[in-house]
């Protein structure tokens, strides 16, 4: 298992990068793409991502082509699955990559890296995870990172294993003028004048175990309104999430505008980019907020803020001894209990889909973080 030297400076004409995870993870990989582009400016960069996550990379000048992997068709099994896999490998090989980078630790990316035909193949050392001989698929191996390393740095570590240094640690998220216009129109229709300060409140996630209480969120909405900042409640398109956002708005006495379920992620990014503040749970919109540079208050439950805190390029300082807790770094804040069981890796306490560690967060903790972030005073 030897790792040969740096490939920086070698002739690399095409690069295939595998990022087969969720929406947020895909956005957090953008600094790795930046590093690759900076190291090999003329190389053609292909990103292979799961269906539904490609919006995080669309419009990004560090990526030339996005190949979408259709998990649904794969899950149908049988002939449909084979056809999908074979087509993917064919289109992959047709780009003739010299370098394949597997940013995820799954087997699929490892196998696809190997099948891509790339001369250099970089991935994370499996350390006896995955199938036998998995490490043989790679030419460059990144040592398994510390559990407490931020997801952005983990991706950059993989690229660095091939001798390619980071070029910019910040996230990049791009939207078009049309997204911007649509966002402005939606805000106007929601009753927000162009110069009026507003904050985006994102109370929902696909995973209910990450969600704070509806009373708490309603309290934050009232707090913002009391400070003269119009709260705008947003959510994903699922009817359950929209209903949850609507209940929170009602509990706050209707003192908020709502765009819940009505925006694409790109449009949501355009809305957040013009907001004074974002308050929300650990979710893709939270990462988008950090990426567009809007001050972000992220409410964390049992998931690792050390991996997924809103990222501005600066380490959050979580350690094995203190892996959780409220922190302020740069423009952003994490609000999290310092309970001993965080991170638990469970789907809510005892499988209830609800997490006590997030439900016990007090309104004062979140509104205090909101005030501090708004004041720009983080000391």
């Amino acid at each position, binding site marked *: 298992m030897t790792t040969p030297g740096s490939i920086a400076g070698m002739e690399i004409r095409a690069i295939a990068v595998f990022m087969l995870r969720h929406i947020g993870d895909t956005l957090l990989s953008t600094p790795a793409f930046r590093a690759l582009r900076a190291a090999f400016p003329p190389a053609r960069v292909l990103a292979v991502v799961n269906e539904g996550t490609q919006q995080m990379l669309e419009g990004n000048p560090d990526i030339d082509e996005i190949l979408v992997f259709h998990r649904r068709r794969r899950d149908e099994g049988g002939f449909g699955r084979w056809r999908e896999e074979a087509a993917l490998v064919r289109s992959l090989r047709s780009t003739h990559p010299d370098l394949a980078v597997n940013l995820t630790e799954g087997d699929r990316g490892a196998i696809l890296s190997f099948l891509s035909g790339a001369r250099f193949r970089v991935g994370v050392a499996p350390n006896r995870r995955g199938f036998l001989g998995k490490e043989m698929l790679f030419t460059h191996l990144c040592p398994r990172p510390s559990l407490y390393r931020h997801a952005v740095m983990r991706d950059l570590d993989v690229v660095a294993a091939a001798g390619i240094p980071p070029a910019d640690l910040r996230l990049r998220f791009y939207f078009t003028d049309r997204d911007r216009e649509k966002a402005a129109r939606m805000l106007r229709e929601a009753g927000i004048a162009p110069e009026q300060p507003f904050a985006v409140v994102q109370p929902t996630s696909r995973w209910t175990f990450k969600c704070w209480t509806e009373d708490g969120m309603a309290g934050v909405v009232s707090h913002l309104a009391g400070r003269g900042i119009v709260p705008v409640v947003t959510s994903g398109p699922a009817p359950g999430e929209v209903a949850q956002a609507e209940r929170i708005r009602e509990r706050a006495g209707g003192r908020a505008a709502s765009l819940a379920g009505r925006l694409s992620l790109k449009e949501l990014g355009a809305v957040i980019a013009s907001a004074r503040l974002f308050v929300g749970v650990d979710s893709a919109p939270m990462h988008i907020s950090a990426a567009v540079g809007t001050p972000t208050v992220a409410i964390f439950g049992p998931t690792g803020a050390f991996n997924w805190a809103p990222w501005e*390029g600066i380490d959050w300082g979580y350690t094995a001894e203190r892996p959780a807790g409220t922190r302020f770094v740069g423009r952003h804040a994490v609000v999290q209990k310092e309970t001993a069981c965080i991170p638990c890796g469970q789907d809510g306490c005892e499988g209830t889909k609800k997490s006590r560690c997030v439900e016990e967060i007090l309104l004062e903790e979140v509104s205090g973080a909101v005030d501090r972030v708004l004041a720009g005073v983080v000391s």
Partner: protein
Amino acid sequence: MTDRVTVLHTESSLGWGGQEQRTLRECLGIRELGIRPVVLCPPEAELGRRAASAGIEVFSCRMRSNFDLAAVRTVLRILREQAVDIVNTHSGRDSFLAGIAGRLSSLQPVVVRTRHLAMAITSRISYSWLPHRVVTVSRYVREYLVREGVPGERIVVVPTGIDVGKFAEDRAPGNLREELGLAPDALLVGSVSVLRRKKGHRFLLQAAPSILAEFPRTVFVIAGAGPQENNLRKTIRDLGLSGSVRMLGHREDVSNVLRSLDLFVLPTEEEALGTAFVEAMAAGVAVIGCRVGGVPEVVQEGETGLLVPPGDPAALGDAVRFLLADGERRRGMGAAGRRAVITRYSVEGMCKAMFDLYRSLLAERSGG
């Protein structure tokens, strides 16, 4: 985690001045030479944001006092986790915290303290006891520290280097005259620097009437932002100079502004080195400064510019008029300044000197 040499730069100040800019330039340059730089600063420091955007790994930590034990503990953790070989400290507080941590760490990293400023030091401990070496940005600062009792053999001078190419490669004149709607034959005299009292902008304003009497086509240009902005505006009004002084505010196109000048004048009263002069010289402009701090090391009197006593508007006015009257001498000095900067104040030269220093300190450590 890596077999490369790792340098941890610590900085407790939050701002973005010459000191922080030098630190970031060193990080970037030294990375080119194969050393891995990482930065530790308070979570809201501008240096952290700038370094991260340049792809340098940044750690954050509050530094509440010189003896903040929680901060010392954080530094110790970072030294261990990042396998730090060298700690380079830059301001007072971080020099204590990281100096103490460096001396406590079982990794025994080399501790270097960079002194960027000319002002009086408040404690000798962070120069004489904690670091293995002190780096100063000029001979002047070195001599000052020696007078204060810091052992001379511990102090190395590494002058601040600038990105010479950015200033020197583009030989075309700047376009400030067009931007400001000035006549093509207007004589532009001014500076680019932070607007602080010690930079002495007011002395140039006081000398302005005598200059305008002889050279009515002179326009004074003050680029930069800072605490003195309102005071300077008031002085301009009081002296009736509103028609001949332009305050430009903060400019990102420093090279363009400098290349537009006929003469760079900054009557600064205190200066560790005077990077503003280095940049002006790189842009090929003759300079006038004061005989203070490190300025005489940068400006070769009579060759690349003129020096006058500090706080003396009459002498300053004489020097400005002398050079405005002699375009050929001015251009000769500008060209000589550019040559001097290329050989003595390039960022490559600075980083090579720091690289050599680090290597020799690491060799000493493993040898001794």
